[in-house]
């Protein structure tokens, strides 16, 4: 046993080295977020005292609006995806109807369409619908695009639920809608959380689509906001508040991560399969 642990030592050394290299920029970001400019210039590498919490106040006043916007857009989109996708996935999984395979294939084939192809016509469409500079310009396309992979995942999960459950509910006089809400949804909870996390990550991190559809700075999402914020602050050499802004921008997803770690890893892995 002892020999085995010893044998693992080189592995630990390499992994820890990789870990340090990965984390150093983030540690530097956090340390610098508490510095004023004097401390930044005269003690670039070290931790300095006193810490300047005012950096956070300053950054928060600039980016809280973007976080709120991202929060509104992400929450609405994710609930939209879950609702629309679970209804369709349920229909595909538990019923037979003419054209079912064709319709399902029509949805799946969209996984082959890269975002770069549809960027320009989607923008022109949203513009023509008069949705530019509204949350809808983001929410509706996010629901539409997000549901594709969600239907794919949810359908196979709901199809794997035992038919007896649905059968006995129907015998008891439950309607389709009732079997959906009282059986399919509660039993699919873990996979719904995974799908939700996948979509939260995608929506929260998206940059190009909000950039083209939201010219109005007041409605910017966090990704677009943080780029403009960075250029402003690095131009003014206000490094402390700039890094404080990065920390604040990272907090919502990190909090989410610690509450849903297990689903998060599943969501990240299956999120990769999506592309």
């Amino acid at each position: 046993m002892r020999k085995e642990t010893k044998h693992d030592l080189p592995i630990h050394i390499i992994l820890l080295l990789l870990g340090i290299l990965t984390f150093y920029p983030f540690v530097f970001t956090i340390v610098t977020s508490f510095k004023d400019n004097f401390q930044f210039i005269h003690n670039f590498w070290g931790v300095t005292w006193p810490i300047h919490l005012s950096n956070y106040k300053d950054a928060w006043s600039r980016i809280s609006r973007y976080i709120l916007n991202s929060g509104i857009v992400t929450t609405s989109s994710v609930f939209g995806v879950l609702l629309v996708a679970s209804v369709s996935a349920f229909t595909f999984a538990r019923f037979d109807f003419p054209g079912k395979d064709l319709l399902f294939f029509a949805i799946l084939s969209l996984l082959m369409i890269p975002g770069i192809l549809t960027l320009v016509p989607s923008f022109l469409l949203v513009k023509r619908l008069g949705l530019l500079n509204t949350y809808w310009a983001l929410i509706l396309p996010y629901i539409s695009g997000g549901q594709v992979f969600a239907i794919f995942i949810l359908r196979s999960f709901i199809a794997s639920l035992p038919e007896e459950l649905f059968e006995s509910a129907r015998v008891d006089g439950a309607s389709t809608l009732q079997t959906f809400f009282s059986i399919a949804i509660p039993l699919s909870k873990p996979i719904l959380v995974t799908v939700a996390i996948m979509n939260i990550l995608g929506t929260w991190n998206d940059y190009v689509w909000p950039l083209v559809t939201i010219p109005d700075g007041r409605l910017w999402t966090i990704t677009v906001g943080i780029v403009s914020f960075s250029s402003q602050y690095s131009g003014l050499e206000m490094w402390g508040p700039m890094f404080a802004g990065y920390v604040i921008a990272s907090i919502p997803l990190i909090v989410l991560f610690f509450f849903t770690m297990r689903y998060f890893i599943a969501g990240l892995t299956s999120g990769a399969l999506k592309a």
Partner: protein
Amino acid sequence: MYRRESKTVWQEIIKRKQCYILLLPTFLLLLTFNYYPAISAIYHSLFDWDGANFIRYIGLGNFTNMFQDPTIPLSFLNTLKLTIASLIINLTFPLLAAVLIFHLKDMKYAYFYRVLFVIPMVVPGMVVFMIWRFIYNPTSGLLNQLLISMGLSQLTRPWLGDFDLALYAVIFVGFPWVAGTSTLIYLAGLQAIPIEILDAVSIDGASTWTRFWKIELPLIAAQIKLIVILTLIGAIQGFVNIMVMTNGGPGETTMVPGLYLYRNAMYYNKMGYACAIGTFLFLIILILTYINFKYLKSSVEYQA
């Protein structure tokens, strides 16, 4: 006969109308926001179009223009470099990390490292880009400060503004590249290897090296191919990294097709041309996916 059959299908459709009603929201959204833009992009790639009133059919004119546009070969060459670099990166560092984690005998540590390498993925990608933009900052950046403190100040330079190095600076973003989905995918593949196989190997007394090359690597071939195709698709159409790090500069040295498409659409109002670039990228991705799919299928048959 035909009439009777079509009548029963029709009756069946009426009987099942509830199903179609349930699918209606999905398809209304998809028709509007997914199918229509995709078809519109391919259709409008054949037009000289400003996105509004001016529209003129020019056949394959946009595509022939692409071959005469000096920015196109330049941007595709950059994408080729970025794609190759991205492939090399994704096939080495994350694989190393995953295999090392997998080889740990104590599961507690394996779990610890997995979580450790997941946490950075939670930081928004844009924040990571911004931090790297600071790392490369010519005056106050981490990299130049590091070089100065090591007495190598002659090596300092404006990394992202350097004509020869800017593209490589963008490639280097995210070093050591282990905190990504690739690591998780490799690890999932490794953990799916049946325990009997690994036990048999360790009884045979195979070295770690043999175990990796002869057993583990062939058994995660599916994961490797998945990462290859994901990396290809991401590298060919992606341009956010370039956009926020260098915006194609200095000059046009780091221009990529995705960013050039964006510029043509948003700055020059050349919507038709932008659609043509998008269609071209779509075709490349389609062909590469098809090749990868064929390759994947044949190798599975080979295994069986």
